[in-house]
């Protein structure tokens, strides 16, 4: 949806129906669309998580050093 929306065609939806109900597909699609929009917006605002991976309350400068410019998983950041 985010990178190649042309690939989401009738055949794609037919495959989805083998795994999910129509209600679940609507739920997934709306959730994904919402996140496509908001993550890009939030990315422009330059803010980072309030807590470090080990649960400490940290300032934004320290959080930026921990989480960096690119998204990382908590499991990787905790090591």
């Amino acid at each position, binding site marked *: *949806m*985010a990178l190649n*929306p042309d690939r*989401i*065609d*009738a055949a*794609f*939806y037919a495959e989805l129906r083998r795994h999910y109900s*129509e*209600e679940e*597909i*609507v*739920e997934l*699609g*709306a959730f*994904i*669309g*919402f*996140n*496509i*929009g*908001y993550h*890009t*917006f*939030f*990315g*422009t*605002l*330059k803010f980072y998580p309030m807590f470090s991976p080990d649960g400490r309350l940290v300032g934004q400068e320290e959080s930026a050093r921990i989480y960096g410019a690119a998204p990382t998983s908590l499991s990787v950041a905790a090591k």
Partner: protein
Amino acid sequence: MPHIEPVDASEVRDPELRELIRRGEALGVPDALLPRILARVPEYAKALLRALIVSHAEGSVDHRLKEIIRVQLARTAGDPYFAGLRSVPAAQAGLDEDRIAAGARKFEDDPRFSAAEKWALRYAREMYLNPEKIDAAFYAEGKRHYTEAQIMELGAFIAFHYGMQAFTRTLGLGR
């Protein structure tokens, strides 16, 4: 035919959802089709419709400017459904198709748009085409034209509508 079939209007029994569908139809965006697809998950439908309508029609940023931005975003997302809808109150307030089209073209050189409107139109365009261009300097320029509350209003509106357009494009609406 949409890839997900809309429920019949008679199946929408939740009074809050029915009222939101009515509000969308009165606004013109969205019409009843998308709400009847979302209505397969009524609690989602209510939350999403409320956010669509409030972010578009309420707040302190000019609704006509938001309507121009909304159509620009729909064209960026390649979504014929939202690109084909029009706000009734924006049209009643004098927004015409020439100005809507101008907002999706080279608006930077268009004297019909103020510096503040051009910043908002750039905000929408760059957020999804070149988000790295929306940096501290870009926001500093925005603060010369808008309050921080208005910038949040614009940013949330842009993000939400673009996301929903990315979704509705895949549903095959408006084709």
